[in-house]
């Protein structure tokens, strides 16, 4: 924290330019405005009083590409006592930032050092995205800066959408798009319902263009919530559908139809050489002893899952074009496209009709009816069986053949079919497919609760556990199982753990063990008080203050049964009341059954569509309150 001595020795000659202080310091009006904005946007620090994007288009005749200019101007005001933020703009191989200016409120240049760095992400091994940014400070309430950024796109293909929301609240957002008459471009308005978005369209015959102006006022900052739906579901935005352009009376398609999008994808895939010589032996060894066609497919699919590491490269065209199968095979790593292509080529070698398949995961709201590069983000392989596809996603781990991860379920796919394409949807599964069952058979034994437990996992609950287990260090695996089964609670001792085969992705995962629990029984006077729940699922699931749906990683279905045998000299004098609730998104219940000397405590939690919608929140929270009450209640036994 302390600065070295040289700060004291080298006394700088220049001091602050106080001549301009008054001109940049907040005015009384700005301070008032900042305070009133803070009353509205209590959790925010900076507000964009105005934010305007002006989009114009050009034509690069030599390259035969439509170019895009995007000028973004913002007027920012600090609504906190002080704020320190980063003003940034991303760019990549297809885009460039030509201007990046930050001015004081009097429009004199503010000298902030502009940095230019590669964007790094834990999810991507390598990508070509870079970021220009400046660290800027607002020393006082009401302090203002005006920013101006000019970004250009070399190819309209990569200019996919326009957003109204920002990480800061916006008092007035304007999107102005000037579409020249030679360009056929559709502005597809998405999620506009519920927002008072004004739209003006004017035609300028002189400049031969049509101008669209969209305005939206008083926009809160973008939601900073975990487990939220993908942005394309929740924010109003404009999807840019660049259909065609006309040059010298000749019409050139961009993405006029899905066929155009497919043609482009297809051209990238068709440029692959796919020399499979080096993978033939492997395919032979994987299929030679297989007893059925299905077993052959499984052997190949599982080999890819188990032996190819997922490493993502997104650099220019490599973001769209798969790596050669033989490269992926030799490197033993690849991204989704490389893995899909290797799976396809191996299956082709084995004599199957395998196809590359494009898909947008569940995070993306669109299907292929709006051809645009932002509608998909993933590639898998399909194998055609009786003219129906079976989907194989090599990036999944411990995924059994014929099972589909929630993240692709219900999503439309674009499947190769020569010069044509096929659109098919990945089937959805029911929550029962992912069912988890916990059974405890317990006896009250003085101060201890002892007995046996069984846990059973299916579908994605099984997959995730198998995968996590597989990635642990060998010498940590036993300890992990204990830790997992006792919820890291040392009052719970687990022993004699027996599991099903933890390397078999097709079997349901089963764990049996003995359990002994201390400090769950309290004796006061003649009564015994028992804590009956040690898992407390959904305990902290109150969805308060939240503005977006809560999305689960898959459809959950948990059934637990805890049977406690009580000493014969005691009778049950108090058990909590049952609760249950049912709606389109969930069925939840907790029941207590008295059965001679046993208490049977059953929970059933089914999340039917892997989400809780905002309209469910009130009812859901009521249930969670009641559930927490049960978790905080004791069963009372009296002599």
């Amino acid at each position, binding site marked *: 924290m302390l600065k070295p001595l040289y700060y004291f020795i080298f006394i700088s000659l220049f001091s602050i330019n106080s001549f301009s*202080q008054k001109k940049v310091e907040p005015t009384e009006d700005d301070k008032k405005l900042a305070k009133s904005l803070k009353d509205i946007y209590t959790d925010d620090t900076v507000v964009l009083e105005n934010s305007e994007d002006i989009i114009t288009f050009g034509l690069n005749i030599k390259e035969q590409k439509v170019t895009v200019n995007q000028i973004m101007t913002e007027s920012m005001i600090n609504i906190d006592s*002080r704020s320190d933020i980063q003003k940034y703009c991303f760019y990549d191989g297809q885009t460039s930032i030509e201007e990046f200016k930050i001015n004081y409120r009097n429009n004199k240049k503010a000298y902030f050092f502009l940095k230019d760095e*590669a964007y790094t992400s834990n999810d991507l091994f390598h990508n070509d995205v870079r970021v220009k940014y400046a660290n800027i400070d607002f020393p*006082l309430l009401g302090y203002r800066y005006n920013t101006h950024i000019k970004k250009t796109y070399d190819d309209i293909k990569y200019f996919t959408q326009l957003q109204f929301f920002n990480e800061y609240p916006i008092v007035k957002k304007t999107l102005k798009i000037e579409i020249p008459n030679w360009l056929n471009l559709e502005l597809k308005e998405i999620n506009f319902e519920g927002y008072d978005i004004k739209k003006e369209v004017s035609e300028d015959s002189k400049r031969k263009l049509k101008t669209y102006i969209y305005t939206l006022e008083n926009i809160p900052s973008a939601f900073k919530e975990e487990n939220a739906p993908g942005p394309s579901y929740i924010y109003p935005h404009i999807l840019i559908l660049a259909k065609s352009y006309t040059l010298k009376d000749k019409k050139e398609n961009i993405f006029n139809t899905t066929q155009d999008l497919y043609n482009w994808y297809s051209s990238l895939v068709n440029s692959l050489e796919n020399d499979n010589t080096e993978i033939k032996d492997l395919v032979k060894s994987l299929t030679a002893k297989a007893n059925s066609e299905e077993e052959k497919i499984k052997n190949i699919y599982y080999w890819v899952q188990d032996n190819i590491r997922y490493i993502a490269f997104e650099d220019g065209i490599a973001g769209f074009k798969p790596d050669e199968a033989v490269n992926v095979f030799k*490197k033993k790593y690849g991204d989704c496209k490389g893995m899909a292509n290797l799976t396809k080529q191996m299956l082709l070698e084995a004599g199957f009709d395998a196809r590359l398949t494009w898909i947008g995961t569940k995070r993306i709201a669109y299907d292929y009816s709006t051809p645009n590069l932002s509608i998909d983000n993933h590639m898998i392989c399909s194998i055609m069986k009786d003219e129906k596809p079976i989907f194989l996603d090599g990036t999944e781990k411990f995924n059994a053949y014929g099972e589909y991860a929630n993240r692709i379920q219900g999503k439309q796919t674009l499947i190769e079919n020569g010069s044509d394409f096929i659109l098919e949807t990945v089937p959805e599964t029911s929550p029962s497919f992912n069912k988890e069952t916990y059974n405890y058979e317990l006896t009250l034994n003085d101060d201890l609760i002892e007995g046996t437990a069984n846990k059973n996992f299916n579908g994605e609950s099984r997959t995730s556990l198998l995968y996590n287990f597989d990635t642990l*260090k060998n010498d940590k695996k036993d300890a992990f199982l204990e830790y997992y089964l006792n919820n890291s609670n040392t009052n719970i001792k687990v022993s004699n753990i027996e599991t099903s085969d933890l390397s078999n992705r097709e079997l349901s995962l089963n764990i049996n063990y003995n359990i002994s629990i201390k400090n769950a029984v309290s004796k006061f006077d003649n009564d015994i008080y028992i804590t009956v729940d040690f898992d407390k699922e959904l305990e902290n699931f109150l969805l308060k203050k939240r503005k977006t749906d809560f999305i689960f990683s898959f459809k959950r279905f948990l059934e637990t049964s805890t049977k406690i045998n009580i000493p014969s000299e005691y009778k049950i004098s108090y058990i909590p009341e049952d609760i249950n609730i049912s709606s389109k998104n969930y069925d939840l219940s907790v029941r207590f059954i008295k059965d001679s000397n046993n208490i049977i405590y059953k929970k059933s939690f089914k999340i039917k569509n892997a989400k809780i919608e905002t309209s469910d929140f009130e009812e859901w929270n009521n249930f969670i309150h009641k559930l927490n009450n049960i978790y905080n*209640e004791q069963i*009372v036994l009296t002599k």
Partner: protein
Amino acid sequence: MKIKFLIITLLSFSITGVSQTKEEIEAKDFFWGSNDAYKNAINISDAYKNESAVILYKNENYDFHKFGKNVTYKTSIRKRIKLLDKAALDEFSEFSFKKRFRSDKGQYSWRKKGNNIVGIKIIKKDGNEIEIDVNAEAIEVDGEYKLAISNLEVGDIIDYYFQKTEPFKSTYAFGFDPIETTLGEEYPVMDFKLYFETENDFFINFNSYNGAPELKEIPTDKKNFRRYTLEAVNIKKNKFPRWFFPLIEIPSYKFQVYFARSGKFEDRALAFLPEKENIIKKTVLKEEVLELYDNRFKPDGYIGDVKDFFKGKDFKNDEEKVIAAYYYMRHFYLTRYIEAIFIDEAKISYNPYSYYGTSPVFIQDQKQFIKHFTEFLKRHKIDYEIVVAKKRFDGTIDDLLIEKNVNVLLKIKTKNPIYVEHFGPHTCVNQYSPLLEGTDVYLLSASKNRIDAINKGKLPISSASQNENKKEVTFSLNDDFNGFEITTIDSYKGHLKEDQQYERLYLSDYVYEDYSKYETKSFVDLVKRKKDKIKFEKELDALISKLNDKQKEKFKKIAESEYELTDIEDYSFKINSTGRYGLDSYFTYTESFKGKNAFIKKAGPNYIIEIGKLITGQIDLNEEQRNRKENIHMYYPRSYNNEIVFNIPDGYTISGIDKLSKNVSNKTGAFISKAKIENNKLIINTSKYYENNYEPNANWNLMVNFLDAANQFTNEKILLKKK
């Protein structure tokens, strides 16, 4: 985790060029050439089968060469590792490194750049060797190279080396960063060889500890050229349990190399150099300590500021005088500048330090502090000794090897001796690193002007009661029993205090206290120009306001985590006393908040209150920790005293307070709790203390006894019964 080579000790590497350079070819030959004795090492013993990875061979090399002032420092590491699971595969599947770097050693030079060479090969299960073409496969972004290893599978061996060549120029004596490390690492090592290569003008201090093999000289045919090696086999992987000082418990080694071109520079080197380059220095005699420091700790410094402060003040004795001077210096030479540091950081002024005059004193290291403070003592004819000490995690003073490990403080020989150490913003008189407590030290003293005597001594050790956290918790239930309110008063003293002060006291909480105590000017007062003054004042106020908001949010989160609660409400925090002017004075603050869904369990018409949880997190030992085989090294003895007051709701009685009384006490520490009911309040007093800063493993079971008692207390409940 991926293998990322940063500029940390040896592990900083890069490569050059697309085709192989001469250096690259030499490096490859050095590690993997015909002399590689480990090219066929592929098998691991059965004992290692359940490991994640096993290092078949690890080789570290440190080469020091020079030509006049020009030094070439070359370090390299090679590891040959058998990967036994996916976790290990993942760890070694990606590498990142820099190709070229600028040396930070010696004189600054634009010309010379260091370069790094990387070699990686894979040995497949069938013995087939595949060398990675690093130059072709690595991807460069902004000078940083990333490499994903092709064709790597579980069961493979990865064999890699990194060689760093760092040329630099040093006219004066130059000390390389010391290396102090355990022999073992994350994975077991079957074979380890460390080599040193030096020539004249390089001085080596090297020693092995806790059973690690010794460094041995390898004969060479050149007179000025020396080689040494340390070799070990079957090294266990490291395990670092709680309360553990690895460097004094498990095999380890330390070294530092010094470059000094002549006797003149040798004398000036701040190091315990061996007498000659061909001697490996293993220990440091007390006479050598005296020789190094006799001139270096001469009283020196401008103390006119203290003189001014003392003007018109009467002190009963020297003790009072020393204490007053220490706290004054802490302010005048440190906390007076804290505002400027924040102002600089927040860019409120581009050079806030200029307002403190042309040559203000800013004490920034231990040695400067000693010189400055002894100047004051000398002027006031107060006798003192300079304490030369070493932190406990690093071995005893008899194991002194590296000068950087020395800590210096002052023992002032007043009637009751006073110890003072270089201050932080909250350091008190008699406060010094707890890691020095109870250690044997050297005491340097001067008969006249020159330090000429050195004696052995021992630093006192604080007691559990001196290092205390006192906590008063008032716990009340809401009328409808669906929530609760907690008010706590936390007090800290002794060594438990300073961390809390750093965490909880922000700029405005203590800097203004010092201004007012010493009647000094705040930063804004120092600014003469009116316009600037107004601007700085406004912006500093805004900064403080922002910091206070963030502070409150942070403390709220700490309280939530301490009591394992989510979403507490009406949180308030107030500092009662900063405790900055005496080790024994308490730093005290009050917190209060409301919460739900914890501590209260409904039981028919009654309620069970998890009252034990209010002493908050206790050490909850798992089986592995219970079976601890290592000695226990803690920072200092300490005590935690809680008073919990539970306001019993009207119409209810309490059952089960007998379970709240515990008494486990032994020579290592204790957990003692008592409960009583007074004026419709349940009052519980708990006391947990750790008697010592060290326990031999033989006492671990005794510690487990009181740790378990404290943990069991957190599980205790009472019944709130309707009358």
